């Protein structure tokens, strides 16, 4: 059940992001300066952490989505759902660890190092 709860929560998180994303991207039609100003406002460590959380949500949602498709359409899917859930979690860690190392290095070196 908790994989389903996680899938729901990450789904809502991704939806909220997409809503904001469509709005800020459409600003470029209003004026490129406004767009640049808004995007510039994202360049701080808090948004950097938010981006990390967003990627974490998307990666989980993507892998677990593949698992759910397998449960629905692969004959042995329901039988192996638990093993597939572990695969999802391991794949999530494998993707997130290198990403977080690189992403957080960039976020915090920009803020503290002032490149």
């Amino acid at each position, binding site marked *: *059940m908790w994989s*389903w709860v996680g899938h729901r929560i990450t789904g809502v998180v991704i939806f909220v992001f997409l809503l904001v994303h469509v709005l800020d991207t459409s600003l470029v039609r209003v004026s490129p300066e406004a767009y640049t100003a808004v995007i510039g406002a994202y360049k701080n460590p808090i948004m950097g952490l938010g981006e990390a959380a967003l990627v974490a949500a998307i990666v989980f949602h993507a892998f677990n989505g593949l698992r759910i498709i397998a449960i*629905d359409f692969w004959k042995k*899917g*329901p039988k192996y*759902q638990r093993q597939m859930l572990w695969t999802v979690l391991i794949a999530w860690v494998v993707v997130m660890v290198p990403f977080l190392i690189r992403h957080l290095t960039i976020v915090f070196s920009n803020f503290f190092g002032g490149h």
Partner: protein
Amino acid sequence: MSPIETAETAPEPASKIELPAHVGGGGEIPTFDVTLRVRRYNPEYSEESTWEDFSMTMYGTDRVLDALHKVKWEQDGSLSFRRSCAHGVCGSDAMRINGRNRLACKTLLKDLDTSKPITVEPIKGLPVEKDLIVDMEPFFQSFREVMPFLVNRGHEPAKERLQSAEQRERFDDTTKCILCAACTSSCPVFWTDGQYFGPAAIVNAHRFIFDSRDDAGDMRLEILNDKEGVWRCRTTFNCTEACPRGIQVTQAIAEVKQAILARQV
């Protein structure tokens, strides 16, 4: 009385008489103290349900149902719960024990953590009538809607309707259902949407849809190809984990989903 007694000649031991310890060969059965934390509800007194603790000494061979009996018979006769066969066949005593749906008659106290109070609640998603008794009517309504009986349009045969072992095997798993509602009342979709047919109704539809002797499979698929039918299932696997008969419920639902898709292509 002759010194040698056989099973045929020995009189039945009178009930309610404690047999001496050497009879039956069993040693001393270990005892332990347990606290049962029961969700009480009595609409005649209060609209609010409350927790009530009962402490007692139980044996290692006792089940949660025995503890409930001990409460009802020795401590508080107003405690209400359903049970009938008490051997995991009739499906009357499904309840939420330590947060999981199980049959009280199949759950041994020693398998639970007896250092903490054991919580016993009515199953969720169905209206509570009193204490652990819920109104099962919405559950049986869904069950009836899937036509859980053999429909055969051929001539009535003079003897049995024959079936190969493979044909019987196809729906063997879903014949095991005892309609205890542990699956349906463990489903988070059913908790929030009482209109959903629920796992048990789909399991019992599956039992006939994949029966080679049955002719109404298409009708049942049509009934379940509904907004509140199989498509409500979000594959949380709670039902499969709750089933006291070990039915692969989510698997059965997935097979019905696939049957609906295959039929429409």
